[in-house]
Each structure stands twice: as C-alpha cells, then as structure tokens.
C-alpha cells in the first residue's frame, strides 16, 4: 500500500512545494494573482459557499454535456464499427471519413455548430460527440477484428450465422479494446465540454464559461479552483472507465487483470 501510494504522493507534495516557491519567491504581492497560493485557492475557491455552489453547478452542467456526448459517441461509434466489420464496402465507404474526423480540427467547426444549432445544450453535446467519436470507432473495429481465423473457422464449422458470430465471438473479444476507446473518449469528451463553453458563452454556464469569466475578472483564486475541478472531472471519468473495465473483463483479459491472479 505504502509502496504504491507513496511515490505519487511525494510528487504531489513536491509540485505543491514548487507552486509555493514560484508564488512566493518569483512573484511580488501585486503579481501574485498570476499564481495564487494553493491555500488561498482552496479557501476562496472552495471555502466560500457561494463560490462553491457556483462552481459545482457549472461542473454538473459540464459533466452532463460530456457524458451525453460520450453516450451518443459510444452508440454511434460502436454501431458504425459493427457495420464496418460486417461488410467491407461499408468500411471502405465510411472509414476514410472517420479518419478525416480525426485529422480536421473539430474545434474550428464549433462556431459553425453555433450558427446552425444555436448555443445551447445540443451544440455543446455535438462538439463532444465529434471529438470523442473516432477513438470509439477505431478501437471497436480493431477489437472486432482481433478474433483469429481458427476461431472463425470453429464458428463456421458448427453452423453459426453472422449474428451469432458477432454476439458470441467478435463482440466479447472486442470488449477490452472498446473499454480502451471509452477511456480515451471520456477524457476527450470532457475536453470538448470545457472548450465548447469557450465558444458558447450564452446559456447556463458550464465550467469552461466560469474559467473564462474568472479570467476576465482577474479572480484568479476562483479560476484556479475551476481549473482544478475541470481536471478532477477528467481524472474521475478516466478512473471510472478503468474501474469498469477491470470489473467487466478483468477476470480474463491480461491488460487489465491483476497480475497476482495469473497462475
């Protein structure tokens, strides 16, 4: 336990120390807003009930946007990957555009969505979907393809049809890769929710809007608190999907299995 947790905790302490050092030694009293002291961030950002309520409301909205985007990206991404795995022509027609989605700067399109769909919840979710879609398609497709030819032969030999093969062989085999995709996309979706806010300044404020607002008002303790919260959300979803993967496929898949369980 100590071996596992001591090193990262030490790093955290060292980083906090550096923060204090930078704040106290490099910055004068007037410049300190550039890097407020950690305990001030905690006291003002989280300690003040009004501030905390504002931050948590914004965080909840951003989390809602990110998770809605992730769910839609998951359904669409897995659906597209399954379709591509079942027919070569579907893959040949669609995969280049999936790659395109990854190569074009989706964020550059964000103002367009505002144009077309308004600046509300829907547009924000759409940003998350587009940014989170590709890793889900790519990982799911890779997973569905990971079954070996002898396993396919075995199913063919005993009269299994396309759907049986998909459901009993390809889909379970793809689960570890799907979880990898989910982990990546969950983080991206949080990024999408925060960055979407920077463009959509109307409507109820998400955590991104608050960050921008605090920045413009030079309320740096609040801003740092908001940045920490947004980061915590990203870490939380990453951890959650790692936890879920261990629960679902950990008993049989090496990449997520506890090494002690292997005999």
């Amino acid at each position, binding site marked *: 336990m100590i071996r596992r947790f001591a090193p990262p905790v030490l790093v955290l302490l060292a980083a906090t120390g550096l923060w204090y050092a930078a704040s106290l030694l490099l910055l004068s009293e007037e410049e300190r807003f550039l890097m407020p002291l950690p305990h001030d961030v905690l006291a003002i950002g989280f300690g003040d009930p009004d501030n905390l309520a504002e931050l948590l409301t914004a965080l909840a909205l951003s989390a809602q946007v990110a998770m809605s985007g992730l769910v839609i990206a998951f359904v669409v991404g897995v659906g597209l990957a399954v379709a591509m795995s079942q027919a070569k022509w579907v893959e040949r027609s669609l995969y280049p555009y999936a790659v395109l989605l990854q190569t074009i700067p989706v964020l550059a399109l964000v103002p367009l969505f505002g144009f077309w769909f308004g600046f509300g919840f829907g547009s924000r979710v759409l940003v998350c979907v587009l940014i989170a879609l590709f890793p889900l398609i790519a990982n799911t497709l890779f997973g569905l393809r990971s079954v070996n030819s002898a396993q396919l032969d075995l199913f063919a*030999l005993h009269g299994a049809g396309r759907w049986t093969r998909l459901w009993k062989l390809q889909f379970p085999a793809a689960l570890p890769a799907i979880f990898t995709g989910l982990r990546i996309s969950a983080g991206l979706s949080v990024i999408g929710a925060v960055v979407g806010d920077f463009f959509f300044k109307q409507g109820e404020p998400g955590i991104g809007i608050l960050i921008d607002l605090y920045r413009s008002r030079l309320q740096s303790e609040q801003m740092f608190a908001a940045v920490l919260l947004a980061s915590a959300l990203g870490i939380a979803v990453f951890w959650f999907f790692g936890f879920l993967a261990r629960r679902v496929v950990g008993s049989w898949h090496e990449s997520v299995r506890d090494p002690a369980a292997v005999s």
Partner: protein
Amino acid sequence: MTMLGFTGVGKRFADGTTALADIDFDVAPGEFVSVVGPSGCGKTSLLRIAAGLSTASEGTVRRETDRVGYVFQDPTLLPWRTVQSNVELLAELRHLSKRERRERADEAIELVGLSDFAGHRPGQLSGGMRMRVSLARSLTVDPELFLFDEPFGALDEITRQRLGDELLRLFRLRGFAGLMVTHSVTEAVYLSTRVLVLSDRPGRVIGDFAVPFGHPRSPELRFEDDFTHLAGKISACLRGGAG
C-alpha cells in the same frame, strides 16, 4: 462403408499456387489415419476441405456425417468463458437445450479429467490442459469423424505423449474415425491405424502405410523393433518425397 472419401482432389488458390493434387484416399469407420508431409505441402488445406471449411478445386469429397469434430493447432478457447462454458459452446451453436448442453459438457469434461477445473478460465490453465478442453469441446458433438490439425504441436514432449495416450483412449472408447495431420512420424505411427505420406507442394500421396499394432497401445510400443522399423520406413519415404 467410408466416413470420408477423397477422389482426385486438387486445391488451387486464387494466387495460382497449387496446394494439393490428385489426392485419393478413404477413411473408414474405426480407422485413424495420419497424414505426414513436409511443411507447406497442403496438409492443413486437406483437413479444411475434409471439414467443409474450404472447397476442392478438383475432384470430389464425400463425407458421410455432419458430426465432425475439429481440433485446431491452437486450442481456440474463448478466454472470457469458463472451461464449462467453453465446452458447452458447440452444443450452444447447434441450439441444443440447456440441459442437454450441460450433460454433454459435464461428460466430456470428466472424460478428459478436468472436472475440478470446470469453473476456471483458459488463462488459468496450462497449455496441455487447454488442449484437453479443446478436445472435450469437440467431444460434445459426439463426432463420427474427428479431424486434428497438428493438435499437440505447440506442447512439450511429455505433455504431448500424455495427450497422445489420452487420444488413444478416447478413440477406443468413442470409436470415431480419425484424420490427423502431424509433423511427427513417431506420433503418427503411435496413434494411427494408417499413415499417409504427402510429397512437397503440391501435395500428392506418395506413401500409404498400414500400422499393424493392435489396441490398447502403451508408451513402450515406441521402443519396439517393429515400431521403429515402420517409423524408419515412413521417414525414408518422407525424405524421398521432400527431395
């Protein structure tokens, strides 16, 4: 009566390579036929054609039964399923009732001596045990024709011999017709009632040896003069064909 018959069978692939040419042989019920040959001579193609996984480009293949067991070189177990559930797979694909699946799997698992491991996942088993699970899985279809594609190739010598004895026992007990592809002449002679030798690509049958030893066979048989003499003859034929 034959369980499997090849008449003038040839196999050409789309890229123009010819894997097999003029293959003629029958496998009768109660026979266990091994096919030995140099690498790349089309042995696996021959098994795939026998199983119906691939079609012959020439000639005809007759198979008298749909109850075909196929043991692959790799155990091809599904790592997310337990041993029990892996062994039930084929009955499941064939839409048998839950009770029937369970009964067949229980019996097959017991036959290969893995009852204590029914709840384990493949990742927790040794290579030899995984191969036993693979055998048990095929046994659940109660095969009349059992095909083996270098089933023990990836195992160490001791495990290999143990599984060979296991296979002989199952052959006597269940009375299926067997067709096995292997690299090992000793293994072929020890397990079979007949050994076919294939030439280099394209594979043709260049030797057909009856194995006169009765059953049950014991490991000491490998060291008897008649055995080593026959194995030597087959090896010589194999070398001649391989050039």
